[in-house]
């Protein structure tokens, strides 16, 4: 990472902290909610960026993990709200509104889903992989729509935001603090992974699979591990997103969600550590500004995305930091 990129990352990290604090002091809860949304969507993007940027795995199915995390939160909370146990046999499992427990379930469930779908999809590569991850995401989408127990098409409401010990999550700035810390932890973990032997091997497998194979490393296992970690991070973001909206619906699983998570990564800059943060911030900013100007703001988003892909491949951070990523 060059000095300019380090500077940009610092500005982004501080900016994401200063804006909600300013909004808190000036009593602007809506702006705090927006920045919370940026932090959560950035977290989802950080997950995808690990698979996409480092591993070169173009997954169009990350909505699957986002949705699983969301539904983990929604289902546990709905059982806690109705006092109906989740299951009674062979042992009783009660619902819960405790965030740490919900996160554990979300992490575990999305890791499991990533392991199964990854093991299947990674048997293929290239364009097959894109289509298959997309198809698996849709499978979950249609499943949640047709499964009536948890709201089907209508989704599930979480009437009171889940709790975190020692904090009042209903106060916007306190909920923001949770998402900010988790985003920070995820960024730290991903940065460490990128510099570890595993990360280097993964990056090498993306650039030249034959060579990696020749030194005795099996790319399939590296990629599967990366895909699972990636899906898990996005799953956590899904659980937080459910709590932000206090609502989950099959939309979280839709392929547009997968596309949007990918758009955050690309707008910000692929394989840049803070790319998803910059991308999510830009996306929410555009949504607010352009969405206020026109109901059809997605046209402008589409044109912008097209311009970035065709002419400015490094995304926002690539544009500002200038220098290359140091590979390819």
């Amino acid at each position, binding site marked *: 990472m060059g000095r300019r990129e380090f500077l940009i990352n610092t500005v982004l990290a501080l900016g994401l902290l200063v804006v909600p604090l300013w909004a808190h002091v000036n009593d602007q809860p809506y702006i705090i909610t927006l920045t919370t949304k940026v932090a959560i969507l950035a977290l989802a993007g950080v997950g995808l960026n690990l698979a996409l940027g480092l591993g070169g795995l173009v997954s169009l199915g990350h909505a699957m993990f986002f949705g699983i995390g969301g539904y983990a939160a929604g289902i546990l909370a709905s059982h806690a709200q109705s006092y109906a146990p989740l299951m009674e046999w062979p042992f009783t499992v009660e619902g819960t509104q405790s965030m740490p427990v919900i996160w554990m379930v979300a992490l575990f469930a999305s890791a499991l889903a990533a392991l199964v779908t990854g093991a299947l999809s990674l048997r293929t590569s290239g*364009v097959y992989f894109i289509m298959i991850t997309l198809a698996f995401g849709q499978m979950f989408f249609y499943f949640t729509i047709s499964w009536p127990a948890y709201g089907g098409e209508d989704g599930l409401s979480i009437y009171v935001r889940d709790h975190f010990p020692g904090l009042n999550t209903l106060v916007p700035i306190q909920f923001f603090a949770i998402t900010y810390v988790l985003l920070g932890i995820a960024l730290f973990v991903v940065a460490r992974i990128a510099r570890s032997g595993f990360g280097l091997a993964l990056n090498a497998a993306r650039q030249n699979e034959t060579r990696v194979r020749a030194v005795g490393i099996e790319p399939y296992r590296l990629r599967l591990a990366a895909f699972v970690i990636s899906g898990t991070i996005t799953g956590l973001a899904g659980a937080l997103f459910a709590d932000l909206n206090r609502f989950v619906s099959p939309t979280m699983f839709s392929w547009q969600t997968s596309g949007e998570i*990918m758009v955050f990564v690309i707008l910000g800059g692929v394989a840049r550590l803070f790319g998803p943060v910059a991308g999510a911030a830009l996306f929410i900013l555009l949504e607010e500004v352009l969405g206020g100007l026109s109901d059809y703001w997605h046209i402008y988003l589409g044109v912008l*995305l097209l311009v970035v892909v065709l002419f400015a491949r490094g995304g926002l951070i690539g544009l500002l930091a200038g220098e290359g990523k140091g590979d390819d």
Partner: protein
Amino acid sequence: MSFLLLIEQILNGLQSGVMLFLMSAGLTLIFGVMGLINLAHGSLYMVGAFAAAAVAAATGSFTLALIAALAAAALAGVLVEIVVIRRLYARDHLDQVLATFALILIFSEGTRWLFGSFPLYLDVPRALSGPVHLPGGIAYPAYRLAIIGIGFAVAAALFLLIAKTRVGMRIRAGESDREMIGALGVNISVLYTAVFALGAGLAGFAGALVGAIQSVQVGMGEPVLILAFVTIVIGGIGSIRGAFVGALLVGLTDTLGRVLLPVAFGTFMDPSAATSIGAALSSMSIYILMAGVLLFKPTGLYGSA
């Protein structure tokens, strides 16, 4: 479950299968010849349906509507190919996915802006609006039967086009060696535009035909696009024959799964649980089929490595 109902459902499965083939054939050709993954293929399907609905509303003629659908989608295809897609052939798949995703956003919102959010309706032509009585006492909608016929006819024409004509020869040559046919003096960029327009036209045609059964609305193309992806993953990317077999498999599995699974679960469960489990499982059936094919043949039934 009566035998007659089963026959009717098999016909429904065939009908959705042949329509799926029209979509998948274009996608698989475009990938086979140009190496491009086109997410916006569903948008061309939508363009066809909207053009048909608009022309049918203005003129009242279903034939004109079909011609308009074919022409509008092919024209949109040519335009998109020249302005955007052409720049993507040399790029990696990620760029292609993103750029065509951007095209979906532009097409969908553009259509919403032009036609509004409410679905349009395209009426089945009067001559085909009644049922047909098939041997064995089956009454089946004439229009759906006609769609099956048209689908098979288009499939046959496409096979002939690719196997017997000069254009088809160039397409096949383009699939096996792009640089070589360029070097041999074939104008490769015209060929690419033509293949893209052919795929787009087929998608638009399918959109218009299906639009008369379902409603014509923004976002109608994406569910079909994803089914078409499943189809060509099963059939093998780049293979027209694979797309045909895959489309029929997906169409039949999807349709029959929806009818048979709840009945099958009903034999040993109480009806309401059987309905919900059957419905949930049948919504996943084609993806399970895809996963099964991938386990044994990672490149699809007719795919080459």
